[in-house]
């Protein structure tokens, strides 16, 4: 497009950009700079009124206190939160992609009836606002009246298991369900809820990729005597991969920052063991009004997310050159 009024291009560009840039300068970029400043002060609710005393400069104390867990908050351990947060995102994405692809392949079976109906039903979790999904699942996993325990009791009757064995404290149980895995039961409840929410979109993306595969390729593979597994490895997988990898990365970042499920279902419990960076950041402001600490926490989050983005950028570049 350079030949279209080239000399005025820069000026034209900034004319188009001006409204957005002006607004972002005031409500997006300036606040981020202000955030860095706040993170070096001990800003609390005592400094919040326009006529209240300014917050004292504390240099890097907020950062040190976060790293050393010296915030005086119960169950605060920064490294544990980061590690759990990474595991949370990774484990979810793996489950979502496997289920999404599997169900997409199932629904792509030639001759399967009622496909349209199933596809229409399976999209439902996507269209419900996440805050509603979270509050509903919070009730689903309730110990006394939640639908999960009630349903388990009904199934239990069939197998003569007494209903009392299904009074499960899904979200509060302190003892880990799997002895050698340091993950609380609440994590598995969260994983189940987020899987309900997460696999359908993966399935849509996988379906798109599956339908772009020319049928002739399968026929050719069959003629070469390929079995179902070989057809998957040599045809399906090759076509799915370029579509699923970017989407899996997108899903990782979305899940990494997923606020509502954890906040409403467990509130980070038991003992802060399902706390994510986003929920902890919110609690620092909402429950403790530790503005300076929360600002420093936000700066940490920025760098963690930056590292993740750079990592994935490298990864996709590596895989891109591999597939080209």
């Amino acid at each position, binding site marked *: 497009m350079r030949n*279209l009024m080239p000399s005025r*291009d*820069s000026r*034209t*560009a*900034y004319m*188009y*950009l001006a*409204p*957005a840039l002006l*607004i*972002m300068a005031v409500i*997006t*970029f*300036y*606040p*981020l700079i*202000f955030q860095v400043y706040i993170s070096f002060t001990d*800003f609390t609710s005592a400094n*919040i009124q*326009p006529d209240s005393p300014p917050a004292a400069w504390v240099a890097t104390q907020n950062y040190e206190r976060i790293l050393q867990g010296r915030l005086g908050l119960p169950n605060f351990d920064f490294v544990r939160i980061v590690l759990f947060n990474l595991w949370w995102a990774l484990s979810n994405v793996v489950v979502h992609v496997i289920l999404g692809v599997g169900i997409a392949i199932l*629904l792509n079976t*030639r*001759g399967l009836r009622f*496909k349209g109906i199933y596809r229409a*039903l399976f999209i439902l979790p*996507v*269209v*419900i*606002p996440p*805050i*509603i999904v979270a*509050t*509903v*699942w919070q*009730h*689903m996993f309730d110990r006394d*009246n939640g*639908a999960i325990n009630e*349903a388990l009791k*009904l199934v239990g009757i069939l197998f003569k298991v007494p209903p009392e064995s299904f009074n499960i404290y899904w979200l509060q149980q302190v003892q880990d369900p799997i002895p050698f895995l340091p993950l609380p039961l609440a994590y598995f409840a969260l994983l189940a809820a987020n899987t309900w929410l997460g696999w*359908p979109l993966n399935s*849509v993306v996988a379906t798109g990729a599956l339908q772009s595969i020319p049928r002739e390729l399968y026929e050719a593979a069959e003629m070469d005597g390929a079995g179902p597994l070989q057809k998957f490895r040599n045809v399906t997988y090759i076509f799915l991969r370029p579509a699923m990898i970017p*989407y899996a990365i*997108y899903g990782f970042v979305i899940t990494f*920052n997923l*606020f*509502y499920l954890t906040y409403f279902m467990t*509130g980070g419990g038991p003992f802060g063991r399902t706390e994510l960076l986003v929920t902890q*950041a919110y609690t620092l*402001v909402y*429950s403790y009004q530790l503005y300076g600490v*929360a*600002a420093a926490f*936000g700066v940490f*989050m*920025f760098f963690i*997310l*930056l590292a993740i*983005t750079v990592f994935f950028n490298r990864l996709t570049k590596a895989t891109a050159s591999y597939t080209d």
Partner: protein
Amino acid sequence: MSAGIAGGWQSNALALRGRLMMRLRGRGGDDEKRLPRTRQAVLQALCVFIAFTVLFPIMWVFSLALDPRALPRPEGLNLIPPGASLRSFIEVIQHPTSNPIDFLGLAKNSFILAISTALFSVAIGVSAAYAFSRLQFRGRQILMLGILAVLMLPPVVTIVPLYLQFNQIRLEDVPIFGDVNLRRSLAGVALAVISGLLPFAIWNLKGYLDTIPKELEEAAAVDGATRNQAFRSVILPLAVPALAVTAFLGFIAGWTEYYFSVIFLSGKVDSYTLAIALNLMVGQFATQTPWSHFAAFAILFAAPVSIVYLFLQKYIVSGLAVGGVKG
């Protein structure tokens, strides 16, 4: 003149898209191959089971909402509870929480928040998206990186600076409104939402504009159309689906906005939104709410956006695939 020509290309592009869609449909259409009966049965059973897991929470919420007994908690699983009625719906419409604001008031505030953030971010975002998509200029790389970096940040991160910044902006004796604290107002929440939504709108729209062939504008330029004319009469009409989808996603963000509303509007009952009421009903500091009321409220809260989403779903998913993944 140029508008007429532009209209011509537009219909060309639409026809092209139509042919493409037909080819895609044609491919899925020849499904005559018969499955062996047992295999069909096994796969159907699997599909029905998956459908059950998807529908289970949704059906449960509806059955809770229909429970007429206003029990603090439900008893057992009933698809249709005995004596099912819509009483819970009527009750939450009249008194969603103990605060003196009814459902309509909450919905009105949520709607104002949603519509203003949606329209504002799309209207401002589209011209910036156009510049990023089509124009070469100094500082382009740095600005794109800046927007990407902001996009990466969850809104939770910027609560502190926005809260403190908006809290400083206070006007006294404004006509009609009286004393105004920007932080304690829907306008403040809307601005906070836009601070995160605008980068998203720019990025999403840029992704879509990148897919519109450059030749359309070049042809318009040959016919003497200026840059602005080409933008208005070639690009904007073609971008309508993307504009609608981006606006709708912005609408959902505003309609369900939680983080800022709860903190900014604390105690300002006449500005309460649906999300704040939901938090009062079932959040961490909630008082005992009958589950039937929660369920009815959740349905009323979700229904408007969920139904529209269901209709727009095809465009949204493909739009996200273009905008979200291309970065």
